[in-house]
Each structure stands twice: as C-alpha cells, then as structure tokens.
C-alpha cells in the first residue's frame, strides 16, 4: 500500500510503485483534472504540484509521491473561492477546448508562488505546457493579471 495526500485528503492505494502518479489520480482516485496528453513529460497537461513543486505526473512514479502532498486543480479553490489564477483565466477568457488548461493553471500557480511579478521572459521560461488551441496570448495576459491581483491582496 502506498500512502499519499491528494488535495488535503489522505489516501492509501494498492498499486505498483512504478505506476505513474497521473494514472493513480485518474483511474484509481477518480481525480480527473490532470490530463493525459503525451506520457513523456512533453506537454504538461498532467501538471500537478508535489509538495508545492510543479511536476508532470505522467512521468512521476507514485512511489515518489509516497507520504507526500499532491495538489491538483480540484484542490486549488480555497473555501469555495477560486484561486486568483483561475479568476484571471475567466477574466481573460483563456480556454478554448480547455484540455490543457488544468496543467497550464497549475504551472502558472507554481510560477507565481515563486515569482510574484514575472516578466514575459519568466513566463516563457516557466510555461512550457502545450496548448494546441494556441491560447498563449491570453495565458500570458492572465498571468500578469493574476500577479497583480495576488500582490494587491497581499499588500
């Protein structure tokens, strides 16, 4: 049995230690926010936070998450309030098909946790997730908006 905490809830799963975290989340724990896109850590649709760090869960064995805290898009809202990044995503009408957006949002949240005022270059470096619909211009604007909104609430 492997123990892990997902969105604050402890779970115990009976799976192979090499089973990727993504598939434990999706097929065992029914946490469907993280998406499968490539299976080789290229696209980032499966991005979740492992102890606050963004990881590509398709390529992280569940054993590496044993005893650790996993945060997915489902756990991002606090007390029914959307995260500022989610609100910015709504304000800028970012998603098109929406399939990559869980991963994009988790990557953006991780970026803003480290860098409260990212430049366009910082965004380019941190946001390597693929969006086949090409919502990039709006992702960029939404990250800047979210940064401002986080700063103003913390100021």
């Amino acid at each position, binding site marked *: 049995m492997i123990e892990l905490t997902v969105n604050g809830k402890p779970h115990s799963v009976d799976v192979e230690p090499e089973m990727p975290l993504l598939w434990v989340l999706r097929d065992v724990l029914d946490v469907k926010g993280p998406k499968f896109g490539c299976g080789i850590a290229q696209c980032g649709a499966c991005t979740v936070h492992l102890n606050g760090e963004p990881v590509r869960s398709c390529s992280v064995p569940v054993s590496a998450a044993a005893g650790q805290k996993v945060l997915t898009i489902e756990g991002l809202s606090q007390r029914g309030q*959307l995260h500022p990044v989610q609100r910015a995503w709504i304000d800028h009408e970012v998603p098109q098909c*929406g399939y990559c957006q869980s991963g994009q949002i988790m990557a953006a949240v991780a970026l803003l946790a480290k860098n409260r005022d990212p430049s366009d270059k910082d965004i380019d470096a941190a946001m390597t997730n693929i969006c086949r619909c090409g919502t*990039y211009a709006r992702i960029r604007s939404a990250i800047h908006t979210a940064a401002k909104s986080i700063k103003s609430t913390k100021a």
Partner: protein
Amino acid sequence: MAQNLIVMTNSFRKSRRDFLKVSAAVGGGFALQLTVPAPVFAQAAAKAKGPELTAWIVISPDDSVLIRIARSEMGQGSSTGLAMLVAEELECDWKKVRTEFVSTGEQLRRNRVWGSMATGGSQSIRSSQEYLRRAGATAREMLVAAAAKRWNLPEAECLAENGTITHLPSRRRLRYGEVAQAAAKIELPKDVPLKDPRVWRLAGKPVPRLDIPDKVTGKPLFGIDVQLPGMVYAAIAQCPVFRGKLSAVANERIMGMRGLIKVVRLDDAVAVVADNWWRANRILKALPIEWDAGANGDATTESIRAFMRTGLDDTRAPVARNDGNVEAAFDSAAKLVEAEYYAPFLNHAALEPMNCTALVKGDRVEVWAPTQNAEATHATAAATAGVPQENVNVHLTYLGGGFGRRGFQDYARQAVAIAKAVEGRPVKLLWSREEDMQHDYYRPMTLMRFKAGLDSAGNPVALHVRDSSHSIMAGVRPQEIKEGVDRHALGGIVDMPYSVPNLRIEFAMRNSHVPVGFMRTVFHSQNPFMRESFVDEMAHAAGKDPYEFRRALLQAKPKDLAVLDAAARASGWGSPLPAGVHRGIAVQDSHGSYAAAVFEVSVSEGRELDIRRVVVAVDPGYVVNPDSAEAQIQSCVAFGLTSVLWGEITLREGRVEQSNFHDYRIMRIAEMPKRIEAVLVPSGGFWGGMGETPLAPLAPALCNAIFAATGKRIRSLPLKNQGLRLV
C-alpha cells in the same frame, strides 16, 4: 515503387456509408416546439410519439433557460455562440441560460429534430443560425401569446424583454417561467420574422463563454474523463503500416500480468483490456505482436513524393478549368515565371488522444464519445455491434481539440468492437500519443507546379497550374470526384479570385497508402501557401508591389479586395519599417469567409527568423461573438505557424516516423508571436466560418515576408527544412 502506392480504399468508407444510411433513415427537416417544464429530457423522449415537444428550448418555472446544442464543442466556442443566437431572439435573461448537448438516441427518436450534428468545415454557426434564431423567435412569440391570453389583452400591446413579458399600457409583467407551461400548449406561430443583425443586443457582443468556468476548475468534461460503474480500460496497438493486418499475438507471454482482463484481436489491431489504463498499456507493450505489413512495407516519404511527382508530368491529367488559351498566351508573353511547390503530411495532434467509451449489453449499445460527428459515431456503433440504429445511443462529451480528426470514426469502431468482446461491461478505449501520432487521417501531401506569363507591362496574361495531390474525397465521398477532378482538393486554386484571362488548371490525383483527412482549413492550409507565394513571385518578376499587384487582379472580387485592403491598412503597408524588418502579404477566402494577413519579420544571418508582427483581417459576414472570433484568429496563428515552422510527418518502411511531441513539435508560449492583431471587418449579408479561414493566408504571408527579407523563396515546407530557425 509506384506499385506499392495504391489507391486508398480504407475501412472509413464503411462508416461513411452507414452514416448516409442513418441520414436517409431518419430523413431531413426538423420541427420546433417548446418543452415545458424542465428538466424533462427523459420525459421528452417518452413523449416523443405524442404531440411534438420542443427541441431547443426548455424554460423552467424558476426562469432558467436550457438551450440544447447539437454541434460538438472542441474549443471553437460555438456552444456559446449557438446559444447566443437562440437567446437573442428569445429575449431571455442570458444570465439564466445553460446548455446541454443532445444525444443521438433522442435525435433519432425525434426524427432528427436538431438537424445536422456534424461539426466541421466551420459550419456550426453558419449552417444552423437560421433555424436556431427561428427557434428562439418562435418560442418568444409563444410566450407572449400565453401572457396575453392570461391577461386577456392583445398580444400587440406586449413586449418580451430580458425574460419577462410586459403589457406596455398597464406595465403588468409576467416572467417567462410563469407562462412557459401555458406557452407550450400554444400552436406554433409560422414565419416569425427574425431580427436584423443590426439591432442585435446580445449577439455581436463579446459575451463570456459559458463553458469557461468548468474548464478552469478541472471538471470532468471530456471523453477521456468518462467514468462508469464497473468500467474497464483498453489500450490499443494498430498495425504500424497502414492497410496492414494483425498476424499473431503471443498471449501466453502476458498471462498473469496484474490487471489483465482480456486480449481482443481486431483485423488490424490488438487491444488489451485491464482494470486501469496504465496496466492495459503496460501489458500491451509486453505483448509480442506480429504484423502483416501488406504491400506498403517499403514506402518512404521519398517514394511517395516521387510517386506524386509523376502527377506533375502526367500528360493525361484531367483539366479542371480552361479559360482562354494558355499556350498561345505563353508564346506571346514578355516574361515567363515557373515554380514548383510542396507541402508535407501533417498530424492533427489534438491534445486529448483519441478515445471512446462503449457499453454493449445484449442488443443495445451505449457510447460516450468526443466526436465531431455524433451521428456518424452512432451509425458506426450500430454497424460494428450489428444492432439496429434504434438500439444505440451516443452521448456527446466535450472534445479536447478536434481540428477535423474526430469526424473520422476509427476509434469508435474499435471501442464498440472491444466492448462487444467484454459484453456487459463499459470499456474506455484510449490511444497512447504514439498511436495517435501514427494513426491519423493526415493533412494530405500536395505538390503543385505553376507557370505564368506576363506581358511587357508586367500584367499576368496566362497562368497554368498543375496540382498533384492526395484526394480526401476519394476516401469519404468518391462520388464528388467528377471525371478525375476533385474540386475539393483544388480549393483556392480552381476558384481563385484573381482575374487572369488565360487560365488552365489540371488535377492529377495521387493517393498513397497513407490515410488522409480533413485538418483545420483542409486544402486551404496548403493551397494558399502555394498560390499566394507564386502570386508574389509574379509580382516580383513584374517589378510590382505585391499588395498593388494583387489589388489590380482583384477588381472583380470586392470582398477579397476589401479584406486585403483592411489588412494592408491595419499593418501600415508601405510605411517605413525599422532597418532589417520586412513585410509579406497574402489573401485567401475559404469556408465562406475572407481573410488576409500581413507579417513583419526580420531574418538575421539568413536563418534566424524573428516574427515581429502578425496582422490578420477577416470578413466572416456576421460576427456572433467578437471575443471568440479574436480567439479563433489567435488560435489559427498558433496552429498555422506550428505547421509552417515545424510540421512534417515522414514515413519509413511504410510507417510514420514521428511518435510524440518530442519529434512532432507544437508551438509553445515562448514561440508565439507577441504582437498579433486581429482585425474583424464583418461586412454583413452573408454567414461565413471563423475557425479556419484566418489560417489560410498565414503561411504565404510569412513566406513572402521571408522572401522580402532574404531574397530566398520558400517553396517547400516546413521552414525547419529550409535552414530557418525561429528566434
């Protein structure tokens, strides 16, 4: 080598025939009525044999409005746009609108009441706008009539607005929810007039999309997210050489592997069913499989391209258009220009890999599918399971991208076949990215040769085009190929907007074993690259400005001309640029709309390409949601530039060489041009598409800018093979 390249007669045709059958079986036409109260989808089904209840609109006593959506939502935003058109005429409170996809079982039982469910060709809005607006207007009139009846006052004194009916003289009011029940019993008014789009209040405005909140909170919306009690999971390996077959599998090698439920052999594939997808895929990878590659095991990109070059020289190629006499005009021309162009196969690469969930139980089939054509999925499921159409139901999910790929039904056929093998249990089939990359219906490889004659003033007097291309129609609607000419494959060529007195266009169909299909903007994704680049070559040979050169040839085509002018104006065409920055321009109509683009680029050391500015002007007639329209322009820029810069599917030993995003590169945020200007110039009077047209002029406008910067003419894509690198 050519004998290896045989005309495709792929199994997709089977489902196409079945789809035609279902279309014929359920007939055309639709009815409109109002169903009240909600939520009554199941009840409506039960009542479908009685007096017809409404198709599109359900109004609850609490005033909430449910609008049904029959077209797939794959990111283009039409599920909001379609609802806006209904709501515009219905005069309901937009804040109370929600939407729901219709199911094919209902569609069939209700005599195709929702019209076509096919989602492609940028058709969703333009081919359903009329009946959707009429549905809204008719329902509004019924609500007004019900209120007037209750008050016993004339309808003409009542006004419907924002979900209420007001009797104007007395200011008495009723909410829609209060009269919806009575309204449902009112006879359908006929020929209710529609609003002039100039007086729209909701449509035409940048209304927030209805699907966005669910898409930022990770809701399980997509086909891949379907979860059913007792569900099992399937992974699949398909014969790596198209048209090959499965020979043998060594099941004994995987016996006892954890989670294994069943190995299912299909004609050209093998699936492993297990208790989760990762285990299914893991077992599949451990399973020794022998394939029979068939006749195409030696094919390579080069062999296919050489086969297609025979189309350029074929002396018997059918003639698609022949105005005047090109040969005579060439003889008297002052200058001749000749060039040959090439565009490779491309993969759609929707981010959600192909998947489908199916349950076969006795003689009934239920399917959950991210499909662009739910009725074709329905027909495919019935045919595969061998059950009557009436025993099938398809639930449409959201699509994680479509781009044309999900109109094909191969994944649905497989899912139902596998479900049949594990009867009684729902099974979710999911392709790996590798399967998705190597089993597409690819954007066709196309070659084109142009020859133009210019007179001494630089005016084009003759143009000869020879197109050697795969035909998508050969696989899906062969009856549309007339005397060897596939006009669909000649889109943008045979119907080019330019006036050239002597014009000859020939088509040599060359179908390899590689399956081809509709990919965003379809032939207008490569043909305009070729035509508009060559027009630039003509302009250069004539010593004329490429914008002015086009203007002179477009005098008989005011809409193409206007959109070209709009792009030129917005970009400041002709105004001075910083040193080293150069412009390129192109124009192309497609999917009922008109588009033109201007690129500004610099190219350092002849290879470092910097895309500094992209201006795209589009005239789609009417714009239903300008915010979604702008999003589609941005989307086309990312999609189009991905193809131009890096897009290329190559073959070796009959199989696709690329396997995943490490070797089939997709644009990322750092590579997206920072300055994209969407210029919407809706001129009204027609309804055009928005999801594909903006892509058409991008490749040539970029390549023409590269020529302006370097003097190097790009005649073959992608740019990575031309020594150009994006910085």
